[in-house]
């Protein structure tokens, strides 16, 4: 007889769905079926079960091949790397629990490391903009129950946050939105006819990289000031029409993603988007929310925030916390050869950093802690497999609207595999011994 585990948290994207049902074999070792999850979420649960999973740490040999080592050796190698390094980089933290992040930060303080999370290549520019101009935001529950004007700017939730629209933003019938999507007007800004754009009431096919102009044009339209004939490829009449639609709503929300944070104007795009939200609040109630990618990147920002005061790129190498994006951010540090060791947990910079940064990681002493085989694990000196958070071990996570949710354990990890928390605790203890001269 198999049993069903209900209310499981999905450890994939920032939507952090909390209604999954997982059917587990009687001995609690095998996942048999998953209900309610999106295709990507289900894949993540199933991948934990895939054949050929690495269950022992692997050390890179001089010829580039990998040899299995014990967890004790892996702990010792990692602790010694931190002990020797003058300025190690600790990157990742978005696919793990807040508990593991906290232990990682202890290690960082002791070894004078720089702690940076995946926001650095994701919503880091959003965080800069928030520090510049603030952020009027809300929770996803409020959006479900109230929002009737939804903007998706430079994001494609159909593919990246597949259940976002059905659970919160477009389709659900809420307290004040009892007709579901019929109550809502959907506006999408994207240079491509993305699948999200195809669903929209209004699609602004903005010229690539011209979001700042379009955001400014909407602000101008709200003030009834004159506009040129087209802005960023969008005719004036359309901009004025949409500005009126936004004004006429009862509650609006701007969701934005990588289309604006990674294009050239970066934090200035977000500045403008937040100021547009502020302007709209002259007419109605409006909020803005970043579409956070990893399931716990928000949590990493939170834990760093309450421990050191900054949400990412925290430099502890001088014995106190410093933060200066452009200087203490991973890609800048790597490109300028300013770090002498790299520790990656719960992320894959090998695949997601520009290749010039990846080359630098390959040359440095490096440890990659990740349940998967990834390009990062295959260029690191040591790869430590761990249990999947949210599948094989529980832990606290933060949803994209900063709501903390406890992830649940569904099955046991493979025999002998440590969790992030266990591995980091052992590294921390070993580092204490090394510092104490043992």
């Amino acid at each position, binding site marked *: 007889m198999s049993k069903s585990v209900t209310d499981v948290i999905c450890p*994939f994207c920032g939507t952090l769905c909390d209604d999954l049902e997982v059917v587990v074999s009687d001995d609690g070792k095998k996942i048999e079926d998953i209900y309610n999850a999106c295709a990507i979420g289900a894949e993540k649960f199933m*991948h934990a079960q895939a054949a050929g999973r690495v269950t022992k740490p692997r050390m890179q040999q001089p010829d*580039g091949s990998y040899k299995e080592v014990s967890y004790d050796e892996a702990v010792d190698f990692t602790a010694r790397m931190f002990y020797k390094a003058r300025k190690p980089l600790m990157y990742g933290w978005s696919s793990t629990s807040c508990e593991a992040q906290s232990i990682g930060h202890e290690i960082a303080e002791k070894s004078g490391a720089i702690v940076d999370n995946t926001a650095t290549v994701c919503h*880091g520019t959003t965080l800069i903009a928030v520090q510049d101009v603030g952020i009027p935001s809300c929770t996803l529950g409020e959006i479900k129950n109230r929002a009737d004007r939804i903007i998706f700017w430079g994001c494609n939730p159909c593919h990246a946050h597949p259940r976002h629209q059905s659970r919160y933003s477009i389709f659900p019938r809420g307290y004040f939105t009892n007709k579901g999507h019929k109550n809502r007007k959907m506006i999408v800004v994207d240079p491509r006819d993305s699948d999200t754009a195809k669903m929209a009431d209004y699609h602004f096919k903005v010229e690539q990289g011209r979001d700042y102009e379009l955001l400014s044009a909407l602000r101008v339209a709200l003030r009834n000031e004159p506009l040129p004939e087209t802005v960023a490829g969008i005719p004036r009449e359309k901009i004025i029409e949409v500005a009126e639609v936004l004004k006429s709503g009862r509650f609006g929300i701007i969701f934005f993603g990588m289309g604006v944070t990674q294009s050239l104007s970066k934090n200035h795009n977000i500045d403008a988007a937040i100021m547009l939200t502020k302007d709209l609040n002259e007419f109605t109630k409006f909020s803005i929310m970043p579409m956070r990618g990893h399931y716990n990147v928000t949590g990493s920002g939170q834990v760093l925030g309450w421990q050191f005061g900054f949400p990412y790129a925290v430099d502890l190498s001088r014995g106190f916390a410093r933060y200066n994006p452009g200087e203490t*951010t991973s*890609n800048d540090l790597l490109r300028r050869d300013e770090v002498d060791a790299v520790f990656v947990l719960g992320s894959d910079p090998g695949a997601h950093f520009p290749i010039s940064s*990846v080359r630098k990681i390959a040359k440095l002493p490096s440890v990659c802690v990740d349940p998967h085989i990834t390009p990062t694990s*295959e260029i690191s000196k040591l790869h430590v497999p761990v249990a999947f958070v949210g599948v094989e071990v529980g832990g606290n996570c933060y949803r994209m609207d900063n709501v903390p949710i406890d992830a649940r354990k569904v099955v046991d990890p493979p025999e002998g595999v440590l969790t992030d928390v266990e591995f980091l605790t052992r590294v921390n203890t070993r580092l204490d011994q090394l510092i104490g001269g043992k």
Partner: protein
Amino acid sequence: MEGGKEKDAYTKACGIIEMDPSDLKKLGAWRGTNVRVTSKYGDVVVKAVEATQGPHPGLAYIPMGPWANSVVNPNTYSTGMPTFKGTPVEVEIAMNEPVFSSVQLVQKKCRGEA
């Protein structure tokens, strides 16, 4: 992405460049041809496919992954964020060159072999 980055499925999903049919025609390439994409910052061989979320003539799209990261602009302009979007590229047919898997590609790039 969650199914294992060392697997073929990841290469099939991300080792591609989505191009507008009119651009494919200009290039003289069939759908499914391997092409070399070159920017100021590097080059990579990927498979050219027809845009699934088009039309967008003049605009090409490589999904997030090591293939895209071989050609993007790594400058952060003091924000910490590399300029992942809007990199000008040239595309040429490279029919006989293979598309490497993610692990192969990154290892080769790191060793200076590709």
